[in-house]
């Protein structure tokens, strides 16, 4: 099947999934107890005030009218206004997106840089101390809650050793790169690196462990195949055989998981952002829940859901490109 047709199929599936996400989010609101106006009016406000507010928010309309209004607003990119600050939700979300994407990508880089070599070494040195160490590491990696790991990292590195900021985001990556381009100053990049390294490790450890496990099991299976024996017999250097031949053939399932996990990373960054005072979508999401700012909660879920679907499609396309069998 041609790649184009495959993509068309996946995109149309994606549209259906997005519609499902959006619809579930809409109806969740009606399953969640509590009148949405409760948070907005003073407790002693009369029924008249509430009714006027309901009218303003369109809550007095029949459910299907509300649903259709909501859908048509979403299609035009209108997420409504925050119930608390009255600002455009789409703007609020856009402002916080770069921080979250930066963090998710940084965590992925950490995971790939550590996970893949660790998996390769572990597979090559099976049943040796290195393998045992890597297995233990990945076992603890998938068993440690990332928020606790974040707190421990702050405790150990930032507070005890006192050389990395404990939290916050003073420098956007764009600004840092701009500084380099403007006058070749690396200060911005250093600040950026210092602030993102701990959250990236906290968020990426689970992911690192997962990649280590996947790489190891894939490599173990591949390494016993005949073509690898032929490579050894030819006397090719170990690194070349392992990384160029064996790893390459185990990369497809790793890429698949990587892509899927990037979506969960964006969602899973919620707690990490909370711990490190990282001003991204996750922090926004939690504060919106706590202030019962329903339009913001709704908008954030829709954006994360859509991002997840898009990443999935991209990963499928990549996999199809590398491995025509799967298309």
């Amino acid at each position, binding site marked *: 099947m041609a790649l184009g047709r495959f993509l068309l199929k996946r995109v149309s599936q994606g549209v259906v999934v997005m519609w499902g996400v959006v619809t579930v989010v809409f109806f969740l609101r009606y399953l969640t*107890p509590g009148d949405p106006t409760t948070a907005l009016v003073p407790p002693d406000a009369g029924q008249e005030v509430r009714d006027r507010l309901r009218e303003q928010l369109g809550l007095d309309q029949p459910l299907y009218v509300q649903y259709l209004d909501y859908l048509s607003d979403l299609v035009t990119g209108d997420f409504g206004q925050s119930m608390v600050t009255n600002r455009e939700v789409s703007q609020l979300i856009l402002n916080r997106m770069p921080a979250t994407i930066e963090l998710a990508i940084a965590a992925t880089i950490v995971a790939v840089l550590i996970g893949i070599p660790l998996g390769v070494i572990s597979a090559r040195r099976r049943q040796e101390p290195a393998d045992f160490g890597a297995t233990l590491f990945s*076992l603890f990696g*998938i*068993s*440690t809650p990332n928020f*606790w790991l974040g707190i421990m990292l702050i405790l150990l590195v930032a*507070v005890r050793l006192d050389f990395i900021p404990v939290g916050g985001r003073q420098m956007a990556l764009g600004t840092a790169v701009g500084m380099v381009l403007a006058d070749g100053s690396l200060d911005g990049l250093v600040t950026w690196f210092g602030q993102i390294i701990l959250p990236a490790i906290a968020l990426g450890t689970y992911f690192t462990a997962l990649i280590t496990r*996947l790489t190891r099991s894939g490599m173990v299976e591949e390494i016993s195949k005949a073509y690898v024996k032929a490579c050894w017999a030819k006397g090719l250097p170990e690194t070349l055989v392992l990384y160029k031949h064996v790893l390459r053939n185990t990369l497809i399932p790793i890429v698949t998981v990587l892509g899927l996990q990037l979506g969960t990373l964006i969602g899973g960054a919620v707690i990490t952002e909370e711990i490190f005072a990282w001003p991204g979508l996750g922090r926004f999401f939690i504060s919106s*829940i706590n202030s019962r700012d329903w339009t913001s909660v709704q908008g954030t879920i829709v954006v994360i859901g859509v991002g997840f679907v898009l990443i999935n499609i991209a990963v499928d396309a990549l996999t199809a490109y590398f491995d025509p069998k799967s298309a």
Partner: protein
Amino acid sequence: MFSDRVKSSLKREFQQSLLAKVGLVLVVLILFAAVFAPFLSLYDPDQQRIGTGDTADESELPPWGVTYTTSQTTQVDGEIVREQTAVTGTAKYPLGTNTLGQDIYSRLLYGARVSMLVGILGAIIAALVGVPYGLMFPSLVLAIALVGIFRETSFHTFELPDPFVVAARSELVPNVLIPRADHVASMPATTTFPVTVAVVVALVNWVWFARVARGEAYSIRSEEYVKAARSLGGRDLTILRKHVFPNAVTPIIVLGTIQVAFIILLESALSFLGFSGTDLTWGADIADGRSDQRDRWWIATLPGVAIVLAVVGVNLLGDWLRDALDPSIQGEGGA
């Protein structure tokens, strides 16, 4: 439930694997702690020893034998005085006390109840929903039931009294299962029931079970013996029950174990954020210690160690089951 071949495979794998033994010991220990928390604990896990007037302030004591120094700056007559106090933990509170002066050891025991209950129940509910769905049982009925359950539970989360309390009063549930037993004199009227959390978590995680069940159903569908059963006029449901389901059981058990570990992590995260409705959990205790992490490290550290041990234990059991039950990756160590 298992055939002799499977049993011997489980046994062999267990004897060969040190990690499987470690996992079993960890899980048994934690289940023991959860079930017998009222007998093992030293104090009421909710009893505060700070600013209550009738009890001495015994908050923020380190674990037994550990000393920590805290420095406080106060202003005396316009001059800033730096005061240093050293505190050493005593055997009275073996793992120290938290910011409210609650005994951490006792709280960890009770926290095990919530974690294990939510983890196991969540995985079971997810499997009960996901497996039939994956095997293509009538799914519309389930969808309707799910909406009903969610509506009910979300109401419980915010408004209704704890169904556990109701159950306890009507003596429907044996005392051992009640999360806050004898020690607790007054039970708040609107705490959340761990089952609510389990249901909510299962609402998300049933998909994994559906996926695995569906994958198995697909792969088995084209097997010769299923074709034979069908050509002999076997009805779909019968084939599903007699042929497809028994084959799908193994991967579902393995997935179920991994899901228990995953749900324990999820529950701790929800509790950490304060979304689970009870504060007697490991996650909530980490949140409590977080505000105070600079000096009083143990308050946030110890509940986290408990979570890691529990999840490592369950994951090791999962690895053992997978290695023993899945012949395709036997001896490879697996992913």
